[in-house]
């Protein structure tokens, strides 16, 4: 069972996170924490010349394998998409990519990065936030 959860792709993203780093002068940025695990994620976005398309994304942070691996996967998913496309991206799309059975507690780990990215885009572009994160300037999942 533990092996199912920590399948190879998760461990690979955890150990070799994609898009890991800090971006100076990002066009959009947000950070969030999951107080339960103490997971922390910051996400930085640079837009293309059209001001809509995500040209480059980076994340930094620390936390459990699920939170860091899922954020790493998210980085690969969102490059080339527009802010409004990501605002409309259902959480299921990321969870499908993560592809492991998650308890409600670990679901928060897996969705931290997506929430932070949506908050960053909301701040920069005013894109809508899902109801559960509405009104947040800094994401704190509880």
């Amino acid at each position: 069972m533990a092996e199912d959860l920590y399948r190879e792709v998760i461990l690979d993203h955890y150990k070799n996170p994609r898009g890991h780093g800090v971006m100076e002068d990002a066009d959009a940025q947000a950070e969030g924490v999951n107080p339960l695990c103490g997971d922390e994620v910051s996400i930085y976005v640079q837009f293309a010349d059209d001001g809509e398309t995500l040209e480059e994304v980076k994340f930094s942070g620390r936390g459990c394998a699920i939170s860091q691996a899922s954020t790493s996967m998210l980085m690969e998913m969102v490059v080339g998409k527009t802010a409004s496309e990501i605002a409309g991206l259902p959480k299921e799309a990321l969870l499908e990519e993560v592809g492991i059975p998650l308890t409600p507690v670990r679901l928060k780990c897996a969705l931290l990065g997506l929430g932070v990215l949506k908050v960053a885009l909301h701040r920069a572009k005013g894109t809508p936030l899902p109801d559960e994160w509405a009104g947040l300037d800094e994401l704190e999942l509880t």
Partner: protein
Amino acid sequence: MVVTARTSLDAQKLRADFPIFEQEIHGKPLAYLDSAVTSQKPRQVLDAMRDFYETSNANVHRGVYTLSERATEAFEGARQKVADFVNAPDVREVIFTRQATEALNLVAYAWGLNNLGPGDLVVVTELEHHSNFVPWQYMAEKTGAGFRMLHVNEDGELDLSGLDEAARDGNVKVVAANLVSNALGTINPIEKLAAWAHAQGAIMVVDGAQAAPHHPVDVQALGCDFFALSAHKMCGPTGVGALWGRREILEAMEPFNLGGHMISKVRYESTTWGELPHKFEAGTSPIAEAVGLGAAIDYLNEVGIEAIEAHEQELAAVALERLGEIEGVTLYGPPADRRAGIVSFNVEGIHPHDVAQVLDSEGVAIRAGHHCCQPLMTRLAVAATNRASFYLYSVPEEIDRLVEGVQKTRKIFG
């Protein structure tokens, strides 16, 4: 079995009192190593609560009928048991609350709001659970008082040499500390802190939630002014806790919750408060839960609190030694002979939640997180730790399984 720790109580036999161990988790026997967060409940406690509901249920201090008298007797009997358990001089000094958190909030609001102001200081410790940290931080901010923190040393023990520094720029009015740290198992020198607090003219508020289940408590010997406990950590039910407070302070205090039962006279113009302890028990109390707490105290007394403590310390010593032998494991907190049955550790490169998840698949339950002690985690420069904690029903085989599970985790994360 690798471990053959000698214990002064028969944990294997006591386990039979706890129905929860009659199940398997993921096809394996349950190794419950998270008693610091909440304990399991023996049949004796469950039976006492069921019996109360089936034979004596009524509201207390209300009716003149037999059933209400019976309920009142059971409820007040539980209060006496709590008073005896902490060696309170007067049973009226014991107030039932929802849990230790509410007990500490009661003091922070009912005492703090009316006695703190600019120029005053509240001193808490770096080892505090948020329940004895956040209410004081909040009350200091509300009243304009200063808020200071007493730091820990490398072993996770309080550095008392920082006390005078903490008191330098104000009048210390409150010193708040736990008797046993829930995160590290450190046993704090409350007697010394209380003496220092009183020398400053301050009150000493003790969070005893982690101590009461495992460590003999004598509020008079501790010299504190308030002591809070939670039933659910000591074999009792959730939903009830208790505050012991020094009578003259409680009597001078304003009430906390307002409403039914806590009054003396209610007139349109004004209301006067009831006597202790009723002044602080507005509304219907958790009656069956209090009866359950009383039964839990009977159970702990029967097993013997000293035997429980000795048993847990032996298990903690074994766990510290065995975990310390694993490559990449960092242990936190004081040496085995100066701590309660709590072992906090980290495995290099693996987040505690991942360790706990793998252990769960082996049927081993440990806590992974910040343990409601974020200031301490900051001091230790970690986001979280793994924590194994023991109780009277913990057995050495569970430490074997913990160690095996940690080794398996390391293998998965290779």
